[in-house]
Each structure stands twice: as structure tokens, then as C-alpha cells.
């Protein structure tokens, strides 16, 4: 990934990621004092304070243990427990997001600079996985629209495209000899979806910074869409004119659509989407519960799709 010069941040304030990494390795190799100390290697979870939000549900939260041990993050393996086992290898600090495409202020935005200008909120959201299970997760984050505010997308921008980090040295799944997915993991949203107040970039959960397996240091959360839309460890956000081709659309266009709105009326060829298992509820005797249109957020988002055939645009 090439790192360009930014226009609105003094070059001295940011350092290209590769340079940071190389320096870290150099320090390590030279047997220098903990490089992590000097450069703020973000391994452990740190407390994160956030204001409550009216968008939060008061449903019982899924236990933190489950939220952080049962993950789909194929960059670290295809098993549900692989991310927790393997994601510790990921260096998440320093971190920057390249913002580019049809914007007035493209550039490499350091995450800490972005975070200085936003106020974090706790959003307790339902999360529905396309595989038929769900959780209730107390995310901490800020509206994705904050990124647009800084980057100033042009009128021609119709979609937002996201990319996950590609770093095989630290992401064991990307070293797999099997073609798991097309890296980098790509996701996308239509502009109005991206600007919707429910759509957030999350940097924490359960009152702490994100564990690596949940997509540290920054990930997307779109609560009315299936979980795979919630792209993790984001390094690039592009404002574009054409609908992005997402990794899952490339992998199986028949199964995964661009919109991926939670919809009990549209079956996935593999899993019925009418019902779901709520994780952490009932052990092996857990009873399926009805899946709600737009994952229960229809009041807020159904109007975005008025007049659209959601069976065609699944």
C-alpha cells in the first residue's frame, strides 16, 4: 500500500506507516529498549470513556467473553476462535486511514488526529450475522459522517469504499495457501447509508479500546446490515462514483449482495434468514428468535430504500 503525502496535516505530524514499522523492527533488531514503549504499541485494551446514546437498545448485552472470542475475521483464520488466537500479532499503533477518491481533502489521516476531533459515544447495537446468529454489543465510536466532514466529498461521490489492512506478516489468514478471500477485504456503502447517524466507526467496545479480534483499531458498524458489512481494521476509505465490488460479492455474487440489509424475507441459499440464535442465551437449548426487518432498525432506515425491490437488491 503506497502512502501519499497529505495536504492538510503537516508532514512532520504523520509518518508513513511503513517507516514506523521499519523503525520498530530496526529498534527491535538492535535490541533497543521496548520499541512498543516509545512508539505506543497498542496491544492491551485501554479504558475508553464515551457518552451514552439514544440509539442504544436496552436489550441484555451479549457477554464480553462471547463478543471477544467468537469472531469472523478471515484475515486471522476461518474458525470462530482463530481471530482471538491469532490477532495478537497485529500492530495497531500507529494507525492511519488513507482517505481518497472524489474528495477535496484527500490524505493519510492519523487515527489519533481523527479521534481528537470527535466525541465518542456508546452505541449498544444488535449485530446479526448472515450465518444466523446475533449479539448485542456495546460499541464505542463516532459517526462515519465525521470522516466526510474532514474529507469533503464532492457531489459526484455516490458510494464509500472501505479497505482492510493487508499485512500477511501479521495476519496469518492472508498467508493461507488457499484462496480464502480476495485481499484486501473490501466493503462499501451507498452515500446516504454512510452518512446515516446509525452508521459508526467503532474504536472500542465494553468501555475499552477494541480488541484486535474485533477489528482494532477502527472498524465499521452498520447495525441494520449483516455483520460482514462491518469491515475491520480499516486503512482506506474512498469516496467513489461507482458501486464498489465487495470481497463477498466477488467470492459468491449469488449469495452476497451489495446492500446486505438484514431481511427475513430474503433467504440466503445457505441459511434461512427468518430466525436467529442470540449468542449467550440458553446454551445448547437456545431457542431461535424471529429476525426483524433491518435488524429492528426499520423505523430509522427503511425510508432509505423506499421504492427499491429488496429481493433484487439484497
Amino acid at each position, binding site marked *: 500500500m503506497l502512502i501519499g503525502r497529505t495536504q492538510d496535516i503537516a508532514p512532520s505530524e504523520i509518518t508513513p506507516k511503513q517507516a514506523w514499522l521499519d523503525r520498530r523492527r530496526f529498534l527491535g533488531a538492535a535490541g533497543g529498549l521496548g520499541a512498543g514503549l516509545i512508539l505506543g504499541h497498542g496491544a492491551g485494551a485501554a479504558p475508553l470513556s464515551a457518552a451514552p446514546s439514544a440509539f442504544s437498545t436496552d436489550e441484555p448485552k451479549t457477554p464480553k467473553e462471547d463478543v471477544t472470542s467468537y469472531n469472523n475475521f*478471515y484475515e486471522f483464520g*476461518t474458525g*470462530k*476462535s482463530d481471530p482471538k488466537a491469532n490477532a495478537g500479532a497485529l500492530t495497531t499503533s500507529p494507525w492511519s486511514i488513507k482517505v481518497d477518491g472524489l474528495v477535496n481533502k484527500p490524505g493519510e489521516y492519523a487515527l489519533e488526529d481523527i479521534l481528537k476531533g470527535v466525541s465518542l459515544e456508546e452505541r449498544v447495537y444488535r449485530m446479526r450475522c448472515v450465518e444466523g446468529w446475533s449479539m448485542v454489543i456495546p460499541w464505542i465510536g463516532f459517526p462515519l459522517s465525521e470522516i466526510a466532514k474532514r474529507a469533503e466529498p464532492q457531489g459526484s461521490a455516490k458510494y464509500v469504499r472501505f479497505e482492510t489492512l493487508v499485512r500477511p506478516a501479521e495476519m496469518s489468514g492472508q498467508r493461507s495457501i488457499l484462496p480464502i478471500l480476495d485481499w484486501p477485504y473490501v466493503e462499501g456503502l451507498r452515500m446516504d447509508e454512510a452518512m446515516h447517524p446509525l452508521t459508526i466507526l467503532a474504536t472500542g467496545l465494553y468501555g475499552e479500546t477494541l480488541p484486535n479480534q474485533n477489528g482494532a483499531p477502527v472498524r465499521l458498524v452498520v447495525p441494520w446490515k449483516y455483520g460482514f458489512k462491518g469491515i475491520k481494521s480499516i486503512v482506506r476509505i474512498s469516496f467513489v462514483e461507482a458501486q464498489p465490488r465487495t470481497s463477498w460479492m466477488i467470492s*459468491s455474487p449469488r449469495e452476497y449482495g451489495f446492500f446486505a440489509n438484514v431481511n427475513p424475507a430474503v433467504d440466503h441459499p445457505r441459511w434461512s434468514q427468518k430466525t436467529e*440464535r442470540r449468542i449467550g442465551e440458553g*446454551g*445448547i437449548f*437456545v431457542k431461535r428468535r424471529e429476525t426483524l426487518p433491518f435488524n429492528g432498525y426499520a423505523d430509522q432506515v427503511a425510508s432509505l430504500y423506499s421504492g427499491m425491490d429488496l429481493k433484487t437488491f439484497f
Partner: protein
Amino acid sequence: MAGARHEGLTRVLPPVWLVYLIGFVPAVAYFTLGIMDRLGADPQNVLERALGLWALRFLVAGLAVTPLRRSFGLNLVRYRRAIGLLAFWYACLHLTVYLVLDQGLDGAAIWADILKRPYITVGMAAFTLLVPLAATSNAFSIRRLGAGWNRLHKLVYPAALLAALHFLMLVKAWPPEPLIYLALVAALLAYRIVEPRLRKPGARGRAAQAR
């Protein structure tokens, strides 16, 4: 069936009932841990999948018996019925967990799944093929069916293939495990085609007899 030639070896091999006993350990362990809620975040799915995976493992083990004997001189034929029946019982438990715990015996949802979800259709086909095999896995049926018994029990080939396919169809992307199982089943089936051709003409008749 085992033949007197291997009597010496046979005596040091454990009794068949021990294979059943050990074979059911995973099921007991998973159900126990499941009831204690010690199977992680999604225990019902872990239980369901573990039982399916053990069914497939026993199917593969059953298919390995003949190659082990013919090509490696290790005769485990006396365990083949136990291995096959273990595969069947694990498939039954797997199906039961699906029907009772997963689907809550919701007839409409189950029927829709079987018709609409190809991996369920294929799994169901595999299970259906195993039923007549389990029902005839006894000395009485072997005597009654004669040569037909051998022909009938060739159904284990498509059953194993469908089971491995079922596994491959239910995963997203391309994780290694289902590919490994499919490759194992394919290799064990290919052995049935390739091995007799490699044998000397004189030996061929004997091989065919021994199945």
C-alpha cells in the same frame, strides 16, 4: 470374515466392544459439556457440528479398512461394522440435534431447509443412504442377502461422498478442513478403482471376492 490367517494379530487387538465404548466418548463429552454450557459462545452449533464431523470421521475410517488390509497388511475388518454403525449413530445424533435443538421441531422450517438449502438436501441424502446400511449391519441380514449384501453396502461410497460434499457446501470461502475430508474420501474411493488394476491378474479374483 476376518480369516484364520491373522489369528495371531487378532488376539492382541482390542475387543470390538471397546471400539464402541471409545467411539461414543466424543458424543458423551460434547453432550456433557453442552449441558454444562462449556462449549463456548455458540454451544448448540458447536455440538451440532462436532457430531457431524465425527460421523464423517467414522465414515472415512470405515472406508480406510479395506486399503489398510490390502496394501498394508493390517486387518481391521472385525471393527468395520462397529465403525460403520458409529458413523450412523453420530449422523443420527447430528440430525437429532438439528431437528430438536436447532429447529425446535418446526416442521415447516425443516421441510423448507431440506428443499431449499442444498447443503441440507445433500446431508439428508447422505443420511438416507446410511439407513439401509445400518439396518442390514447384522449377521442375519448378511446371511439372507448373500451377494446382494455386498452390493447394497457399496452405498457407503456415495454416502461418504455426499457427506464430504455437505461439509464443503456449508462453509463460507475455502477453509481447509472440508477440502481435506473431501480429498480423503476421493482418495479412498479412487483406491477401489485403481488398486484392482494394479494387482497381478492372479490376485484379482481374490481381491474381488474379499471386496
